[in-house]
């Protein structure tokens, strides 16, 4: 058990809580989960001026102690000491946006009433000054009965003062002053009290947030707003491919070098085959996508930190309302283009349970980055690299078509789900639009590092295991000379069974073999095909690089197209299924997702194969 006193960081969304957390703890952070829910638990270490260590935990932003979403539930349960797996905090640091004092103070009053020692961080005090607000900190502190410290978290101002104030209220961590149910207060009463305190402590010269209003005049304009959003999304997807080209090349070269190095050191045999065809080929074919994922997340993190993401939700609300969702669903769905897992986790901020369930069920249809390796290999092998006019290449057009197919399918699915299994009136749309802010390098970098780590961890465990297992199943039992090793192997025999099911939709034996381990993660399909063809043609040297050439000779065009359509729909990602199970608290919805997505995948691949064959492609 951790002996350092626990201090919780609490505040409204958009108060600058995460920036303050990063400023106080630096990169010494641990990201975990609260038991039973997928709400992230972010904690870090900091030292008080007298050297005492503190464990600081960053609680999800919320507007009150009356929880509407799972995120807010965790915050409430922690501060009243009811959260499983968390101690009752020894003190709270309540973060307030100085420019929004009248609103944020209400939550602070609720928190102070809990009876835990409290220090208030009056954050974004620089913005308040720029807005023409003068806040009397002493008067505020007196009215609230707790210490108030001015801070500018993004520039690390006021951190020492905050730590000093904290040192005077935090005990030694062995016992906490009090706990219990929060006293019942009606929001309106508290709100009015908060407003009175705020008005008494604040002198204002103007109400304007000049920059935010000027930017919004363009970003939310009925005509230029949607155009700007389209441009930003276009640049984002363009950048994912063009910026990643060079680093992907380096990673490929690095793994090719590693394969050659192993070959030159080890004699031909089982061990060399395991390392070269199994481990290096498998991990390499997945790791090359790290640059793409990081670039996509870079855009998403910057859009979030700058305050633009909420504007995008505002602009998309009308469209989403058409299928029974709200603009809020747009943010998780956009994240799902990087990976459905953070996307599904981001649905925690949607308070309406039916909206949330629908968003969870359609998120896997967004083209995540794990599909890119599959698309890239198949498109590279079967779609000619010629222009269709106006500088648009046929290959890019097909890729774009696959993205659009996923989006359209998701919208239709949402429309149907909202009228059948998640029937009910629309929950509406209501969101605070924060001021625009320059994203801080440190905060974006910490977010990116955490994403990169999650991806590398997955590649190093789940994907490595799946590839090695597949290699073993493909290599044993060893075929007698003259027999086809792949068909003779254990994996080959399993695939032969599956082949009877997928043969009608144009899939061959190798595809049947590749889609089994691809249940672990979609990108494994590529490494699996690479491994299958590497073992089949064991005397050839390169695996990954010649995969495109090998596919070209062996698959027909209708088969390749059917394979692409399969991957638009098929829920081939165990982690996603696991996250759906955790988020929906049971097996019902993950099993439903598996059934409806595999059903759609089979039909879509089938129709594509039959149509392409009929057209004589």
């Amino acid at each position, binding site marked *: 058990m951790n002996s350092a006193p626990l201090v919780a960081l609490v505040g409204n969304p958009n108060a600058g809580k995460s920036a303050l957390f990063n400023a106080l703890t630096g990169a010494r952070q641990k990201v975990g989960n609260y038991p039973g829910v997928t709400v992230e638990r972010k904690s870090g270490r900091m030292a008080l001026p007298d050297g005492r260590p503190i464990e600081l935990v960053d609680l999800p932003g919320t507007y009150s102690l009356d929880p509407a979403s799972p995120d807010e539930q965790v915050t409430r349960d922690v501060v009243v000491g009811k959260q499983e797996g968390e101690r009752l905090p020894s003190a709270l640091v309540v973060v307030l946006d100085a420019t929004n004092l*009248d*609103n944020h103070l209400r939550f602070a009053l609720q928190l102070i009433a809990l009876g835990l020692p409290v220090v208030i961080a009056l954050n974004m005090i620089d913005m308040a000054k720029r807005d023409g607000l003068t806040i009397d900190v002493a008067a505020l502190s007196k009215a609230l009965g707790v210490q108030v410290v001015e801070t500018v978290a993004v520039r690390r101002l006021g951190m020492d003062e905050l730590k000093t104030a904290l040192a005077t209220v935090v005990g030694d961590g062995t016992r906490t002053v009090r706990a219990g149910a929060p006293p019942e207060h009606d*929001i309106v009463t508290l709100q009015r009290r908060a407003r009175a305190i705020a008005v008494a402590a604040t002198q204002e010269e103007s109400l304007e947030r000049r920059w935010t*209003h000027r930017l919004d005049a363009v970003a*939310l304009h009925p005509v230029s707003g949607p155009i700007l959003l389209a441009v930003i999304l276009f640049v984002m997807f363009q950048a994912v491919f063009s910026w990643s080209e060079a680093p992907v090349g380096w990673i490929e070269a690095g793994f090719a070098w590693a394969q050659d190095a192993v070959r030159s050191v080890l004699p031909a045999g089982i061990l060399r085959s395991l390392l070269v065809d199994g481990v290096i080929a498998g991990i390499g074919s997945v790791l090359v996508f790290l640059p793409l994922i990081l670039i996509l997340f870079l855009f998403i993190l910057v859009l979030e930190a700058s305050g633009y993401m909420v504007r995008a939700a505002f602009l998309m*609300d009308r469209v989403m309302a058409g299928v029974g969702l709200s603009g809020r669903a747009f943010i998780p769905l956009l994240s799902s283009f990087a990976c459905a897992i953070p996307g599904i986790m981001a649905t925690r901020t949607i308070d309406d349970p039916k909206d949330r369930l629908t968003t969870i069920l359609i998120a896997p249809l967004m083209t995540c980055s794990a599909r890119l390796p599959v698309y890239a290999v198949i498109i590279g092998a079967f779609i000619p690299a010629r222009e269709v006019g106006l500088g648009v290449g046929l290959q890019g057009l097909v890729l774009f078509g696959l993205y659009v197919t996923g989006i359209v399918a998701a919208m239709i699915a949402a429309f149907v789900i909202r009228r059948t299994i998640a029937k009910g009136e629309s*929950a509406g*749309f209501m969101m*605070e639009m924060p001021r625009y802010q320059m994203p801080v390098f440190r905060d974006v970098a910490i977010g990116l590092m955490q994403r990169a780590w999650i991806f590398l961890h997955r590649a190093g465990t789940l994907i490595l295991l799946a590839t090695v297992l597949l290699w073993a199943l493909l290599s044993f039992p060893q075929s007698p000379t003259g027999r086809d090793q792949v068909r003779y192997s254990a994996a080959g025999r399993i695939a032969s069974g599956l082949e009877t099911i997928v043969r009608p939709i144009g899939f061959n034996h190798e595809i049947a073999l590749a889609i089994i381990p691809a249940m672990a993660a979609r990108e494994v399909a590529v490494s699996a095909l690479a491994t299958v063809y590497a073992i089949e043609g064991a005397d050839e040297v390169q695996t990954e690089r010649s995969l495109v050439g090998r596919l070209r000779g062996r698959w027909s065009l209708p088969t390749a197209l059917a394979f692409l359509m399969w991957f638009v729909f098929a829920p081939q990602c165990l982690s996603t299924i696991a996250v759906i199970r955790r988020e929906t608290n049971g097996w019902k919805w993950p099993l439903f997702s598996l059934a409806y997505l595999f059903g759609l995948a089979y039909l879509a691949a089938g129709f594509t194969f039959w149509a392409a064959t009929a057209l004589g492609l």
Partner: protein
Amino acid sequence: MDVMRLNDLPPREAALIRVIDWTALKAGEARRMRELGFDEGVRVETLHRGPMGMDPIACRVGRMTIALRRKTAAAVSVEPFPMAAE
């Protein structure tokens, strides 16, 4: 002065909230509105309209900017007050 609904308030015109018909709102919606600072006597102003001038709208409530749909805004009765351009 005339009392009108928030969704009919012309953009950039300041007003005071007179009455909020909480019964016309769903429980969760009403609670969220209270949390975001909607209350009788608070100053509001419509800042932006959604794409094509349709849903949703963005209003300033106190010092915050809140996006909400017109149907929700219709529950809020406001009274415009004449003021020189800020």
